[in-house]
């Protein structure tokens, strides 16, 4: 039996969120025999803007819910129309990115449909009974839990960066317009008015850089942490930091790696003075190769990296800098 998987395609400012593509790529690769559908909501203008990209996602079919009332994302209106589509097409699995919007939208849809929901998954598998096994970190990344659901569709949100973007075979994508009933939505929107929006400048996506050099507590000071930036520049790599380094104010939160920070997908991840707590390792599971430089031979990372070098991180960085700037 083939399963029907529906993926919510989130677009902001006419760009499809990377996590939506990551989910499609994972499902296409790992859910054998699943037919994959997409759903997107917006007004005519915002849908038109992403239509060419929508057709290149490798999906069988994209359901478009288009209405002037959906011009701006709103959790009440979007949850209402997406729930209508789900009731109509009855997918077996429904997936969404765990973005800021996704994290409020998904539970509202689940509650409307009275179905279970698993948040922020880092792994998804279909078992032999075509049930979704949704695995997520819990307790601040100290534990992993695999969750199943008794209700259909099995519904989960997926952490950004948890899945790799892979090449997926192109195919003809059919676009179907879904006529949602917007009678309730209009009343909801009257109660909610956005007075002002300031878009934040989006930092370039550094999480897929070929090489990432990251620093942690073992660098001992903010001054030493600055060396990470210089090293990254000389290596044409991107800098990153552990949670401990961020909490001490050595680095901004935007470059934090780990369960509460970013998941990264480099060819090479070099961890300088990072102990490698579980919550950090969750963020680098997709790194192809990990080098750990740490003075403490017993740090957890010395058993979980590909290459472990017991040495003083600051000394090694300084030598690298002088060699590279020669």
């Amino acid at each position: 039996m083939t399963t029907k998987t529906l993926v919510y395609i989130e677009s902001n400012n006419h760009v499809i969120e990377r996590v939506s593509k990551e989910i499609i790529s994972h499902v296409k690769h790992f859910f054998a025999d699943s037919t994959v559908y997409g759903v997107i909501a917006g007004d005519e203008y915002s849908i038109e803007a992403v239509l060419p990209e929508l057709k290149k996602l490798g999906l069988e079919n994209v359901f478009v819910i288009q209405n002037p009332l959906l011009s701006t994302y709103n959790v009440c209106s979007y949850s209402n129309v997406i729930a209508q589509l789900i009731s109509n097409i009855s997918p077996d699995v429904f997936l969404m990115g765990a973005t800021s919007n996704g994290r409020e939208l998904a539970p509202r849809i689940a509650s409307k449909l009275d179905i279970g929901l698993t948040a922020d998954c880092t792994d998804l598998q279909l078992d032999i009974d075509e049930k979704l096994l949704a695995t997520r970190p819990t307790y601040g990344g100290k534990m992993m839990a695999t969750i199943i659901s008794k209700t259909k569709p099995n519904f989960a949100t997926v952490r950004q960066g948890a899945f790799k973007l892979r090449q997926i075979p192109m195919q003809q994508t059919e676009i179907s317009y879904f006529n949602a009933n917007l009678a309730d939505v209009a009343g909801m929107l009257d109660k909610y008015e956005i007075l002002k929006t300031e878009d934040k400048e989006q930092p370039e996506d550094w999480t897929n850089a070929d090489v990432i050099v990251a620093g942690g507590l073992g660098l001992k000071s903010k001054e030493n942490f600055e060396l990470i930036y210089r090293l990254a520049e000389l290596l044409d790599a991107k800098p990153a930091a552990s949670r401990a380094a961020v909490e001490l104010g050595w680095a901004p939160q935007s470059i934090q790696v780990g369960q509460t920070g970013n998941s990264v997908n480099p060819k090479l991840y070099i961890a300088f003075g990072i102990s490698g707590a579980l919550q950090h390792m969750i963020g680098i599971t997709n790194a192809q190769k990990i080098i750990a430089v740490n003075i403490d031979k017993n740090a957890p990372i010395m058993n979980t990296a590909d290459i472990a070098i017991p040495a003083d991180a600051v000394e090694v960085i300084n030598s690298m800098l002088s060699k590279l700037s020669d």
Partner: protein
Amino acid sequence: MTFKIAVFIKQVPDTDDIRWTEHNTIQREGLESVINPYDIGAIQLAKNVKFLLNDCEITAVSMGPMQAQESLKEALAMGCDNAFLLCDKKFAGSDTLATAYVLSQFINTHLNDFNLIICGYQAVDGDTAQTPSSLAQKLNIPQITNVTALKDVNNEYSIWFKETNSYNQQIKIQHPALISTTIKNAEILPDINSYIRANSTEVNVLSADAIMADTLKTGFAGSPTQVKKAFRPEIKRNTKLIEEENTDKIVDCILDIIKECKERDDD
């Protein structure tokens, strides 16, 4: 008319010592517990609303074991006016959907004339952030998540600052509405009157019957999601240890690996 706010709080374990029950849920009894840090942010916002309005009452509500009365007492001491504990064996094992149902039944039976519900963004023991949205849907009211501050409030509407990774907004919302806040660990200055009142205020304990809950929709029975397996993840690679005294040689070795990685083309 008194402006009525419900603040939902959760008692969470304050320890790394995690024990699991036979149902693969957290064994909560006997654990050192605190109010979920985001829920203290919610109490702070409720107090900010009360500060701007003449006639306002804050009700703290929690679902959990009898032990959660302690957290509610603490909420009273922080300035909440009254407290309810939703406690019933039939609530045990509730996932976020069942929890939202129980909380909505409390609202429907005991606080139907509320103006605002304020919640913490998420509980630090589950990190799902699902209950506030799920509850707003059950009550069919508008919601704002990721709220960082209150701008203005009157009886009919309020204006809030919302902040996500990609945008900042100011949003005006008509009451009744639900707000969930990302303020974590607000510092609430103790005031002696609240403290004294907390000592003489009883926490009202309500069972499933008292909130007219259909127990097929609560607890394990009413929870569609189940933990199939809880585990410490195996993060293991075949580690190669390079023990080298000479820093220069270490550097050469690292630079070689970098070169090799950069040259390799892959998928």
